[in-house]
């Protein structure tokens, strides 16, 4: 992909400061009339179905009007199969940068419940995020969670995903088994429990002081022809022993259920998941 392919668009935003550059996605901070600042996302797509999906999801974000998601200000289709999204700038840092602040159980669990409450806005509309990962969770100065990149990752990270060996939307390190086997299983098995698995990885990672629970350095490598973390996810090999310790006894069964290989072994409803998490910190 030509790195200057968005030059003619960016020309309209002289204040644009690059925040992130991916395969077919670039994200900028821009000055914007009204709120003062906004996030500009420029991207390219290959198939009409992809832009239709993005348009639908922009509509959803506009419809939700939730504090958990950045407000959408603009969406435009551009020439040469490109698009522009302008959305709310949220003063925040990513969870990736904040992992060390959430290593004790109550803090990690409260954060999870906060994120799940936000994701419920999607789930009740039969929408699955599919790419819940620390980079896509923002933490505001007040410690509140915000969720970004809804659905956009499906398109924009596709080249990267293919390289990583993923068959479908998602990011390898946080993918659920049904995402790793998307072509084989199809979309029917992707649901809110897919996001639940992604969250399970994040919760375990927080409690493991930032170590990824499925990382080969932590648990070794499973046999298989996928990437090593993916192979471990597919084989359901993760760092369970750490959670055998007494102080982890309440959270371990919840994690085991969230990280179950098969979706039907996970919590069927978000309410049950929140209930289980609340119980493990002694809250109802």
């Amino acid at each position, binding site marked *: 992909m030509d790195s200057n392919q968005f030059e003619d668009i960016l020309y309209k935003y002289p204040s644009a400061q690059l925040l992130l550059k991916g395969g077919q996605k670039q994200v900028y901070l821009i000055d914007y009339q009204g709120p003062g600042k906004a996030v500009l996302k420029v991207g390219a797509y290959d198939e009409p179905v992809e832009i239709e999906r993005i348009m639908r999801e922009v509509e959803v974000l506009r419809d939700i009007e939730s504090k958990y998601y950045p407000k959408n200000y603009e969406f435009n289709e551009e020439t040469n199969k490109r698009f522009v999204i302008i959305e709310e700038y949220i003063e925040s840092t990513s969870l990736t940068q904040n992992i060390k602040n959430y290593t004790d159980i109550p803090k990690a669990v409260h954060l999870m419940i906060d994120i799940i409450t936000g994701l419920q806005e999607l789930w009740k509309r*039969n929408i699955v995020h599919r790419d819940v990962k620390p980079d896509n969770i923002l933490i505001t100065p007040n410690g509140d969670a915000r969720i970004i990149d809804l659905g956009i990752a499906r398109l924009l990270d596709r080249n990267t995903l293919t390289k990583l060996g993923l068959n479908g939307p998602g990011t390898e390190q946080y993918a659920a088994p*049904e995402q790793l086997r998307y072509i084989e*299983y*199809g979309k*029917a*098995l992707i*649901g*809110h*429990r897919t996001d639940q698995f992604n969250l399970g990885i994040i919760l375990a990672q927080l409690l493991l002081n930032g170590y990824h629970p499925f990382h080969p350095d932590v648990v070794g490598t499973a046999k298989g022809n996928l990437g090593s973390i993916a192979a471990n996810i597919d084989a359901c090999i993760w760092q369970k022993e750490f959670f055998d310790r007494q102080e982890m006894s309440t959270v371990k069964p919840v994690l085991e259920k969230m990280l179950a290989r*098969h*979706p*039907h*072994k996970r919590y*069927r*409803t978000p309410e049950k998941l929140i209930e289980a998490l609340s119980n493990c910190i002694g809250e109802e």
Partner: protein
Amino acid sequence: MALKIYHQLGFRFKWNIDLLRQDNIGDGLILCPRHMTDSDTQTLSPLEKSKSIFDPQFFLPGTDLGDLATYDFFPRKNSGDEFETQQYIGTQSILDANKCVDYQIANNFEYCVIPARHQIGTPARFITEYEDIFGKPFMDSILAKNVRSKILVQIILNEAMLKDDEFKNRILDWTTGMMDISGVYLIIDRKKKPKQLNDLDFLIKLMDFIDDLRDNEMDVVIGYVNVESIILSIADPTIITIGSFETTRIFNIKNFEQKEENDTGGNSNTRIYRTYSPKLLQYINNIYRNTIIDEISKISDEREEEIILFEQNKYSFPSSHKGDKLISQHNLFSMYNQLSTIKNLDLNKRYEEIRGIIEDAIILFENLSDKGVALDSDSDGKHLYPWLTAINLFANKKGWRSSR
């Protein structure tokens, strides 16, 4: 939660309905449009309908209609003679789904059922095809009409599906992922022989399948089930069924391929009649039954107590009796009474009780053998050993204890 026992209706559905009305036998009905016309269905009172499940029986959407012709939603009725099951997608399935949902709403049945077609083996496109033909059209219709009754999705589960762990898990993942449905109407598509399911692996996997659904807090209705219903009950299904003829106790797709003149298995001169023995957990060939009653004075259990193998009830019949109705009613009565003794027990107690019944039955068969009775393979007790093993393994997994 108490187990409910419903009649699986078939060719002689009136006999079942009579038992429900006159003798309070059964907690509800599973209706069969294949054999019940719409007029028959309309003879049910609102209360009876509210305790009934209407099975649309789309098993073979392209076959001869039978009494299904009286319902305006059956696929072939609307698609005509050119209908082919494989091509049944798109606009027509949406129309049929709308009509079928309308019918179920208008009659205020206990559940709204999303039907399934019969499949052989483990089709690669099983879930996708189901979604296209039934899942999406029915769910769209149900959601658009704001249906208030609980929704069941029908699954016809064959041996190959159940024994293929990957396939089975995918069905469970898919089914439990449908957030708007309350449960599964499960039909077990298995070999016709032996009459009592005795495949240990099959039984264990079936109990686990039910258990997985229940763990997801889904209702589980088990249709077309024979005496094995008693052991499946420890997996905590919501509803199990009793049926008068084998065609309602063992699912056989051939019964839906053509209009049958008589579903009862032959004329009264050549038929082998069987009587259900709660003590033996088996239907016994009546020639043997009569011999046992007439010739063997005492059958005892391990406690040396005299055991009456065949329940004496309102519909008991003399040895010389031939004819379906009385025998059928007697059997339904016996089966229901037996299931009633365990339906309110908690699962651990239910397991203990059933384990005792099976162990006693094994001894009684041995006693019969000691007295020289060599039962035919459809009346013997070989199934009891895998049954006992299956429930014990399930109990071990659950951490249940038996005081026996």
